[in-house]
């Protein structure tokens, strides 16, 4: 058949030839059916970027799912080896372009651990402040994307309205809407413009009031949302920890692990917040965990804004950063999970090797384990559960 030679050509992409086994073998004998292989390819609205899933379908049920990545591989690690230390920050901005500030934070912490330099407290506080704003800027649109994939168009409009307002705040503070390049090794680029804490404060109170009517009432009791997400993409605690998941997919199963709480860094020691976990481990639980984390971020921002320490913002390290030999590892809690950077330096101007542990790469393994057995349309909510960003999983 035509399919046979074509599949030989794709041999590399498939783990083993389409097994042809069906979910319910009894139908097979009557009509001699076989499964069909299909591409949910790079250009697909629900794939959160460029991901190709080779699905083996029996009717509507997915029998086997094999993700193929690399369509947005931009060789960030090779470029990071080719630039001076401060020049790598714009590259890290483009790793997870929904929560950029955490990516810079992780890299700068790793290099600061190499240089073991002292960060002024005001810089630490503003770093945590902007990090939490970035988390809200990333969580609310991901809730919007989850709902958009289930067919509801209003939440994404509200989500991007919130995102526009936070982007205005980021533009006032850092100068850019998305690629901030704001956190520098040893501190920050510049202090907050005056009058900024007041605008942040008013925005946060407005957001807190708007959160309930715009998102929670609209989504929580919705019949379609419940029927499409409850029990879909169920993960047990052993499986989640075994697969190395971190961030929302891990916390929605009930395992309480948050890098800000258990491996504290920067200003997070003297902030009290609690780690949101849920028991069910399915897509609806991930929605609740994300919404809870937005509330925790609002609470943290208020604490930081209340007692913002004084002092200058950029510890001076001189123009030429040349850390001594050794390797610095730092991990940061980004909106998608534990993001770790391992910088190996050999004493020269450019890092010898930079390894980015992006949470999306690891959380994507969920697709291979969890998707088989679900219906084809259930892949969208599961992608909403993981909420990956293609810049992060294709380093």
């Amino acid at each position: 058949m035509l399919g046979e030679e074509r599949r030989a050509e794709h041999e590399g992409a498939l783990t083993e030839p389409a097994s042809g086994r069906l979910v319910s073998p009894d139908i097979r004998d009557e009509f001699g059916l076989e499964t069909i292989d299909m591409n949910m390819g790079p250009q697909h609205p629900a794939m959160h970027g460029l991901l190709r899933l080779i699905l083996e379908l029996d009717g509507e049920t997915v029998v086997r799912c094999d993700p193929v990545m690399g369509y947005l591989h931009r060789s960030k690690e090779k470029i990071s080896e080719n630039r001076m230390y401060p020049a790598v920050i714009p590259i890290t901005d483009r790793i997870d372009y929904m929560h950029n500030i955490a990516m810079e934070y992780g890299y700068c912490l790793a290099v600061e651990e190499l240089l073991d330099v002292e960060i002024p407290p005001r810089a630490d506080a503003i770093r945590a402040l902007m990090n939490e704003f970035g988390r809200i800027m990333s969580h609310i649109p991901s809730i919007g994307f989850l709902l958009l994939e289930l067919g509801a168009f209003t939440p994404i409009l509200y989500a991007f309205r919130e995102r526009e307002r936070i982007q205005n705040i980021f533009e006032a503070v850092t100068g850019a809407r998305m690629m901030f390049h704001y956190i520098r090794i040893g501190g920050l680029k510049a202090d907050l413009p005056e009058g900024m804490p007041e605008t942040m404060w008013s925005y946060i109170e407005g957001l807190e009031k708007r959160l309930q009517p715009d998102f929670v009432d609209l989504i929580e009791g919705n019949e379609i949302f419940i029927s499409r997400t409850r029990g879909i993409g169920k993960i047990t605690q052993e499986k989640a920890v075994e697969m190395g998941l971190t961030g929302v997919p891990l916390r929605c199963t009930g395992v309480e692990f948050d890098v800000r709480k258990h491996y504290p860094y920067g200003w997070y020691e003297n902030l009290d917040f609690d780690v949101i976990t849920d028991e069910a481990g399915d897509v609806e639980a991930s929605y609740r965990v994300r919404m809870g984390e937005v509330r925790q971020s609002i609470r943290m921002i208020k604490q930081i804004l209340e007692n913002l320490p004084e002092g200058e913002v950029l510890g001076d390290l001189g123009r030429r950063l040349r850390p001594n030999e050794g390797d610095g590892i730092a991990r940061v809690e980004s909106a998608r999970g534990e993001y770790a950077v391992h910088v190996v330096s050999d004493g020269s101007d450019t890092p010898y090797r930079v390894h980015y542990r992006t949470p999306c790469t690891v959380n994507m393994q969920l697709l291979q384990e969890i998707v088989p057995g679900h219906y084809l349309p259930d892949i969208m909510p599961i992608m909403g559960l993981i909420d990956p960003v293609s810049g992060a999983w294709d380093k």
Partner: protein
Amino acid sequence: MVYLYVGIFMLLVTGFVATTLVLARLISPGRRSSAKSQNYETGETTVTDPWRPFPVRYYVFALLFLIFDVEAAFLYPWAVIYDSLGVYGFVEMVVFVLILAVGLVYAWKKGALKWV
């Protein structure tokens, strides 16, 4: 006399549809090419050939839908002249609906509605 209006209406509809289709066919600067005629699979070549035996569930569902769609089509004209029919028309329609309900129950029990 009434059927004249229906005839004009039919003419208008087919005329409108015909002109739009023919006009589109004429104006479009269509340039055929073999790459364009490949079937679209989100940017990739198809992994297996889609022309292969398809699960029978879809066909069974289509049949059931057809039956009850036609039943609904019969209900409309009946509902329009419902008041002039009196009890006799009402009983007649209830019997009709009941027969089809029996068919639905049979299909349900047989498991035709179970979506694997």
